[in-house]
């Protein structure tokens, strides 16, 4: 990162991601938990914008913040009363969760710091990805291009729609 301003902005974004994700899993009311998830997803989109992936940030906001959070809120309101607190956790589960989370943090943090600390000092220059290049790579059939996964994911989405209808249908 070159300028002080971008470092400050990145710090704010990272801090908000950490704080909101902790609040997401510790909040007792599940509707609040979904709202904190929304803020976390927005902060993630901010990171994508900061790294010059504008299309990815737009997709993140549209799909996650627009679609998935609405689905969550909808299903929460359908399945539970909004004022309910979740039940008190037993301490055994607390300890188990802390151990698993701490072990993951240790392993991932150690790998990140020991292997790639010096790689992230400077942001390499990159020309902005134009929509032409993006579309060509997404729809091309050559080496390193992504038509087949694109088609596979469209079939997956279709199967998901049909499966959702079948599952949610009244018997």
């Amino acid at each position, binding site marked *: 990162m070159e300028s002080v301003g971008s470092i400050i902005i990145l710090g704010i974004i990272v801090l908000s*991601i*950490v704080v909101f*994700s*902790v609040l*997401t*899993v510790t909040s007792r009311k*599940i509707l609040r*938990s*979904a709202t904190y*998830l929304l803020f*976390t*997803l927005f902060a*993630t989109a901010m*990171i994508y914008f900061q*790294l*010059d*992936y504008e299309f*990815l940030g737009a*997709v993140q906001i549209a*799909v*996650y913040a627009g*679609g*998935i959070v609405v*689905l*969550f809120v*909808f*299903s*929460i309101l*359908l*399945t*539970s009363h909004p004022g309910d607190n*979740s*039940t008190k*956790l037993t301490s055994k*589960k*607390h300890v*188990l*969760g802390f151990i*698993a*989370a*701490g072990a*993951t*943090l240790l392993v991932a943090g150690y790998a990140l710091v020991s292997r790639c600390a010096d*790689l*992230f000092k400077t*942001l*390499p*220059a*990159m020309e902005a*990805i134009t929509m032409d290049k*993006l579309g060509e*790579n997404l729809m091309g059939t050559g080496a*390193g291009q*992504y038509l087949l*996964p694109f088609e596979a*994911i469209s079939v*997956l989405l279709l199967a*998901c729609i049909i*499966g959702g209808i079948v599952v*949610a249908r009244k018997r």
Partner: protein
Amino acid sequence: MFCCGVYGFITRRNMIAILISLELMLNAVDINFVVFNRFLYPEAMEGMFFTLFAIAIAAAETALAIAIIINLFRVAKNIDVEDVNDMKF
């Protein structure tokens, strides 16, 4: 963020809370893909496409899981993991 997801996945009992934790973990992995792509291989776009496909798959998976949960709620009136023991009603 991933650690928070792991913590929530283990400690929560409500199925929707577990799904939310799952989304957190998926997002952490997506950030990793994008950041590594940007810093190590700025001329390539593989990480970005992986993130795109991961977002699409996460959307599909969430929609299907929520359909299942709502259907389960209709039958069992309850979406705590430990209280739902039967698979066939």
